[in-house]
């Protein structure tokens, strides 16, 4: 395993310390979360995630958090940094000088332990939107691939950039108030597949959009798009689907199945 300690070449002058306040929750002993503060030395190039790794490696091995890629691709290290949902790996400790930094698990999700939340609810929603291409007719390998022009790809490309980090859910008060709301991330991915020229599954996905807890559960707070680390703009996907839902409704009035 590579070193997760601050670089040894850092000069004393470039090292400062910052207080990191963590929300802690141990399901075995705590009935509710508590706070714990750590003093962490940091350099200008250290991310919040590296700060947490420093704590785990040298101060308190029991501190629990999710992480993997360290480069804003895996979507594992989403947490509340001073109240704002962010990826710990792409946020620098220096930006919180002089501190303290308050770190909490993503809002609106049940805490499993310390900074780890239960994403099972989201995963079930993700599965429900059928996040895969449903072609109009199956082609055999011999028939070749499904072709697409760059223009057709543009229609869905930004929505396909979602990394399931759940920052948008932590930003969405509607999800916080009503956990049945399908939510920004899943609806953005639903839109991604509906907009794909190779996909013919729109009719299967529209009941989710049309539901009370689908696109109509959104009041366009817009904070989801603000915190999205991949510029997916989930608020756009959700609100464009209000138009799609209205069209779908009138279409079925005119042409009942």
């Amino acid at each position: 395993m590579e070193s997760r300690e601050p670089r040894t070449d850092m000069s004393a002058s470039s090292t400062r310390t910052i207080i990191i306040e963590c929300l802690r929750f141990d399901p075995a002993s705590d009935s509710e979360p508590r706070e714990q503060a750590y003093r962490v030395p940091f350099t200008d190039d250290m991310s919040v995630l590296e700060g947490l790794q420093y704590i785990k490696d040298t101060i308190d091995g029991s501190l629990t958090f999710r992480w993997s890629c360290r480069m804003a691709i895996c979507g594992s290290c989403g947490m509340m940094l001073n109240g704002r949902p962010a990826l710990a790996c792409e946020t620098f400790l220096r930006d919180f000088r002089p501190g303290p930094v308050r770190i909490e698990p993503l809002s609106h999700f049940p805490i499993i332990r310390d900074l780890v939340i239960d994403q099972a609810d989201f995963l079930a929603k993700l599965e429900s939107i059928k996040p895969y291409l449903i072609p109009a007719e199956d082609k055999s390998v011999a028939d070749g691939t499904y072709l697409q022009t760059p223009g057709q790809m543009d229609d869905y490309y930004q929505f396909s950039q979602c990394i399931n980090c759940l920052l948008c859910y932590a930003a969405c008060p509607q999800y916080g108030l009503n956990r049945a709301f399908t939510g920004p991330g899943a609806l953005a991915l639903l839109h991604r597949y509906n907009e794909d020229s190779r996909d013919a599954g729109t009719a299967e996905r529209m009941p989710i959009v049309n539901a009370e807890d689908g696109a109509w559960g959104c009041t366009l707070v817009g904070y989801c798009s603000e915190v999205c680390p991949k510029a997916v703009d989930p608020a756009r996907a959700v609100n464009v689907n209000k138009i799609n839902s209205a069209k779908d409704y009138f279409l079925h009035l005119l042409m009942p199945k």
Partner: protein
Amino acid sequence: MTAGSKQAAPGMKTYVRPIGSWWLRNSFYRWYMVRELTCVFITAYAVILLWGLMRLVQGRPAFDAWRENLASPSAIGFHLLALLLVTYHAWTWFKVMPKTLPFISIAGHRLSDRTIIALGVAGAIVASVLVFLAILLSILQAAP
């Protein structure tokens, strides 16, 4: 655990934080709430206007009394506040407008969000100026 929501493992002990006064958590939420609250003032403005219409039907003295009430400092204060809030509401409306539209492409180029917002704001300004000029013109024509 909220009823109906999925859990990683059945019976697993988790802690759900109460959502509390979420609208106070950050300035983004606070401005959202201001946007939502503008509806109260816009509704009040519409009710006052409808009230005036009713007074108009009741005859000249009733309508003049309604107009006289509008000249009171509190009524002017309310209308200025309502104007300020409706202006803010209009701005937020145009700001989110691109998010409510499918992508618009002209000659193979996608219209940027900034362009859509600018077009909306420009349209609102032009319409407001035209309405203002029309009112001004009718007042000038009515003057002896």
